[in-house]
């Protein structure tokens, strides 16, 4: 039995064209302008819709194991599928930490059991993300880990980070850094600027991010090992990465949907829904991050999907944990807030993160016969608003209530099988 998609606009790294495609046994078997339906074909009429390679999220907190009240690998995978994702990189700040093969394997197996998207576990750089002892990179790489990060924290010790880069050489893995010099952000609740001055809250200065971006760029220059910068949020960080790329250094970077759409002014509501790390910054920073995405300095849009139960987000700003949901709204935010062509948006959501995640053989592939059928079908013009109660995520901490979004995922196809059809998760 095959699946036939007709009347679509096909959009991939090779451009944009009208067409149809047939999927059989998990792969694209035929692409053409018009394909005839055969008896028994499943049909998707994609008139007015765009078919693109499936989205890949470099930065998803699935919370399992350890915080299953906020999210599980199953609920997070469902949210991912509804957001158009066929693969996500699971962040390692679980409990226990993804710092050894057994936990990494557990996460991978739970992802396979859910069967809603490919779950690729990352692993921590240091044991327990404590910043003192390296995890067994080679053993974890052999278990399929491509990205290493202590996300939630940056690796503070410059010597340890130098060793991490050096030891990673030859293992085909990438160090992904959460850039935050913690001595400069102690107790910080929000961006250090006008708004935090008024609210009397300890500030998270842009400098704390930029110093570590700069440190790691220089370590990359020294060691030759690649680095990926997580959730860049400041204008100067973008500029530093731009210069590093101009120097030909092997660095990549991501930014989140919230850092291209929201500013620190929202904290004047005193609602911890807007508390996130790194914090929402100024409009100047938002514009610089958008510009970075448009000119390719920032490779990928990554959600930093961070579910938290309502009780914890109802606490005062300084006590609530940082983080916001992102998987189900990323496309709608990206199209609404990036003034660019659709190929740039989809590239940042699909083939570019697929390459950084080291899964470019299965995801983010061109739409051609013989390629794996991991695809997203979306309406690029539909305007919609998020309804928290209808989210598939177990948590409700979306900052986009009442914010107009543009672009909605209709179908998601994982290994040839729809995980989402007509906006509805298939399991």
């Amino acid at each position: 039995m095959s699946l036939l998609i007709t009347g679509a606009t096909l959009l991939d790294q090779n451009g944009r064209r009208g067409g149809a495609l047939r999927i059989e046994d998990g792969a694209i078997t035929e692409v053409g302008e018009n394909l005839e339906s055969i008896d028994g074909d499943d049909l998707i009429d994609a008139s007015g819709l765009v078919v693109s390679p499936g989205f890949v999220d470099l930065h998803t907190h699935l919370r399992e194991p350890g915080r299953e009240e906020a999210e599980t690998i199953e609920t997070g995978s469902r949210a991912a599928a509804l957001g158009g994702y066929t693969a996500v990189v699971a962040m390692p700040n679980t409990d226990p930490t993804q710092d050894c093969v057994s936990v990494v394997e557990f996460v991978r197996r739970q992802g396979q059991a859910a069967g809603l998207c490919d779950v690729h576990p990352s692993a921590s750089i240091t044991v327990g993300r404590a910043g003192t002892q390296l995890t067994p990179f080679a053993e974890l790489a052999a278990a399929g880990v491509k990205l290493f990060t202590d996300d939630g924290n940056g690796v503070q010790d410059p010597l340890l980070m130098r060793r991490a880069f050096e030891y990673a050489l030859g293992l085909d893995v990438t160090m992904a850094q959460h850039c935050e010099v913690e001595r400069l952000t102690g107790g910080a609740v929000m961006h250090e600027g006008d708004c935090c001055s008024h609210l009397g809250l300890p500030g998270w200065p842009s400098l704390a991010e930029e110093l570590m971006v700069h440190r790691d760029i220089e370590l990359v220059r020294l060691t030759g090992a690649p680095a990926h910068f997580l959730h860049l949020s400041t204008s100067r960080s973008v500029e530093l990465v731009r210069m590093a790329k101009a120097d030909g250094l092997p660095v990549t970077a991501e930014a989140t949907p919230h850092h291209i759409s929201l500013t620190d002014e929202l904290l004047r509501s005193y609602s911890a829904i807007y508390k996130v790390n790194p914090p929402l910054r100024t409009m100047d920073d938002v514009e610089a991050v958008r510009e970075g995405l448009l000119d390719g300095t920032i490779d990928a849009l990554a959600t930093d999907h961070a579910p938290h139960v309502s009780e914890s987000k109802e606490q005062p700003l300084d006590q609530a944990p940082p983080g916001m949901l992102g998987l189900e709204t990323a496309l709608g935010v990206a199209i609404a807030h990036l003034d660019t062509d659709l190929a740039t948006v989809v590239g940042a959501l699909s083939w570019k993160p697929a390459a950084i995640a080291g899964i470019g053989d299965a995801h983010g592939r061109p739409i051609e016969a013989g390629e794996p059928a991991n695809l997203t079908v979306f309406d690029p013009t539909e305007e919609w608003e998020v309804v928290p109660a209808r989210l598939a995520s177990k948590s409700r901490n979306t900052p986009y209530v009442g914010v107009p979004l543009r672009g909605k995922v209709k179908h998601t196809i994982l290994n040839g099988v729809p995980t989402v059809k007509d906006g509805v998760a298939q399991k």
Partner: protein
Amino acid sequence: MSRSLLSIEELGTAGVQRILDLADTMAEVNRRPNPKVPALRGKTVCSVFFEDSTRTRLSFETAAKRLSADTMTFAVSQSSLNKGESLRDTIETIAAMGVDAFVIRHKSTGAPWLVDGWTNAAVINAGDGWHSHPTQGLLDTYTVRTALNRPDGFDGLRVAIVGDIKHSRVARSTTAAFTALGADVTWVAPRTLLPPVVHEHVENDIDAVLDRDGGVDVLYMLRMQQERMNEALVPNLREYTARFGLTPERAARLAPHTLVMHPGPMNRGVEVAVDPAELPGALITQQVTNGIAVRMAVLFDLLSAESPEQSLTEGPTT
């Protein structure tokens, strides 16, 4: 829905004037042999202090009692918060006992706004984090207004607030209140004790304001906390006093019209190194006295508001 007092900014200039006018009436009540009126009989005011402040709590509770309201105190140290109950559950539980106003002190910026969203009772912010302490701003401006007999505003009045502005909700609310009434406020502090972004006029030492032509009309000294030394914000208290303290030498140079204020409790020998009783312009005890009248005004302003379900506006008024 009751009204609440959360910040000077939300109260606005007209609101500040209204409260200060009302405070005149309350101050007259306090001067009587029996300083108590039946205005808020049957109303219940609950003070919920998540941070210790005996003087502010006593001031509010005295104010409530002089208006004949019933008072309850929720002492956090003995409370279920130690058993993991959330702020929201705590507030909703107390509210269910029948409370007309909450007086909230909390170490977290914004906590009173959250509480206001969870209850129909009036909420009075008695200090949140480093953010806001509106009744302090009101009592400070009321104290200057009565001392100078300037009920119509402070156009041209020169106020200098000296010390740890960054960590001070008093500085923020008092600045907002003086500014709302037309005064010019200068902040006097080293850069380490200022917020990251400053819109006010700033001086780097106290002599710069004392030596200005005409001096300064109000010299407002903030409390300097010992723990700031540990954060490398100032090198030591001796240097702080030398650069920012009201020393005997500076006290002798004060213009005769300069009023000296302090929110208390005072660190004698640090920010104020003279006996305030010997300063002719000191208003420090008046601030404490006026705190009660101002808080009575705030309580009456919020709790005398019409409740829609009982409105008698159709009926006779005399």
